[in-house]
């Protein structure tokens, strides 16, 4: 048993994947606490899906896919905010429009490349192909996101819980929302390598939703969420190592869903 846990650790690619999963898992779970509590799951889905055209464009034009992804996610956030700035357009539909437009643009761009196979990793993730540069990007994003969350903890908590009071005190709830969207875009970029554009949103929502069931304070929610994401990520990785039929991205997400299900069944109703 112990041997089978230790065996994959001899492989450099597995260790890299493990490190990436732990860092991204914690980043997304902490951000996800706000995503879930503020009911931003749909926005986060849009941001993560809209990465697609950015990465494809970057591959076609030959610049860093991370820059492409970040640009596309920020463009989506800005576009949705602009569309929703009219009184007769709800934010929900604005986000829906941006999500579909960006995803369609991504598919159209993929067609230009004439080879869909190259993009399977982009859509579904390929954590085993994480290289040292990827690890660096993921580590940097994790540092930026977690430092941002720590420094702005009181402002983000206040603006998320009681927007009116935040406004009254001058803590700029509108600005906090933009900051949060930017951080989600950053977090999404760091995850796309692991679980793919289609499933990244799961890392924001599932662990944090588990945390919300178990935690009584915001830091507790983040801690439970991180634990769930790390556990799910590690188990998912081992699963796909020993059962290659299970793609790593899907394995990670499915394993994150198990603690959620357990929490849903045992957490006391509040």
């Amino acid at each position, binding site marked *: 048993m112990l041997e089978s846990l230790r065996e994959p650790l001899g492989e450099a690619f597995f260790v890299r994947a493990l490190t990436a999963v732990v860092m991204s898992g914690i980043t997304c779970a902490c951000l996800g606490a706000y995503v879930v509590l503020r009911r931003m799951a749909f926005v986060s889905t849009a941001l993560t899906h809209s990465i697609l055209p950015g990465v494809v464009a970057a591959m076609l034009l030959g610049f860093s896919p991370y820059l492409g992804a970040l640009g596309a996610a920020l463009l989506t956030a800005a576009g949705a905010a602009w569309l929703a700035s009219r009184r007769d357009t709800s934010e929900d539909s604005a986000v829906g429009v941006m999500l579909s437009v960006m995803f369609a643009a991504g598919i159209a761009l993929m067609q230009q490349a004439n080879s869909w196979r190259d993009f399977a990793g982009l859509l579904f993730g390929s954590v085993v192909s994480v290289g040292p540069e990827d690890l660096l990007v993921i580590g940097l994003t994790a540092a930026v996101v977690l430092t941002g969350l720590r420094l702005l903890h009181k402002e983000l908590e206040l603006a998320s*819980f*009681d927007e009116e*009071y935040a406004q*009254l005190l001058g803590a700029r709830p509108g600005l906090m929302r933009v900051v949060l969207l930017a951080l989600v875009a950053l977090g999404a970029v760091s995850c796309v390598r692991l679980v793919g554009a289609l499933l990244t949103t799961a890392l924001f929502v599932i662990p944090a939703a588990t945390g919300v069931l178990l935690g009584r304070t915001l830091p507790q929610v983040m801690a439970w969420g991180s634990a769930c994401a790390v556990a799910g990520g590690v188990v998912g990785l081992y699963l796909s190592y020993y059962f290659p039929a299970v793609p790593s991205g899907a394995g990670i997400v499915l394993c994150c869903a198990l603690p959620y299900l357990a929490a849903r069944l045992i957490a006391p109703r509040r």
Partner: protein
Amino acid sequence: MFALLPTLPYAPSEKAGCGGIAIRATNLTARARADGPVAFQDASFEIPCGCRAALIGPNGSGKSTLLRVLAGLTRAESGTVFIGDATPRTGRRRIAYLSQRPHLTAYFPLRLRRLVQMGTYAHHGWLEECFHGDQAVDLALERMGLTELSDRPVHTLSGGQLQRGLIARAIVQGAEILLLDEPYAALDQSSREIIDRFLFSQGQHFTVLMATHDPADLARFDRILELRNHAVTTRRACDGHGHHHA
């Protein structure tokens, strides 16, 4: 590490204390929503420091809008508001505003103690975490009869307990002006008594403006503002209890 960071205040610094007039509104015109009808027009009134003022008027007459304008949450179309010698934006930490139905995020993981502690944020800037002020929080919880509930998640509190918690937050904030939008709307008797005792006891150094529907209530107020047909009329002289904060 955090001590090294520059701390920026949320609001510009201002002189503390209330000398004479707590709230002065001049020719105020505002709408509840930018594309809605005018709520009141050219409203001018004064509320002296330490005054307990009631704001009355029929449903939909614009009481809530007036309170929101005074709190700086809704922008007035024209006219000026002074909170002491500051505008609502610069004098914001002096004001506490309680809306009729607080828009709090449902099921947010927050204990009552943390909610009350948020009052201290008024005196902190960006990036600063506050680890002190526990004594003030304890005192405020005690005054509102909430000591036993301080570790309860906010979403398990009753409407009255929550309302008291929000007033405790205003106490911790050290607000000099309390703008209350029908605070008794959904309160049980015991919550009401606790809030009454706090608002109307002698020697309290703050100014109150409370929207109310209860005519029997009015005897207790020093000043009555009536909002009717888009205009504000003032009744009763309030001598004011000119006071200064340390």
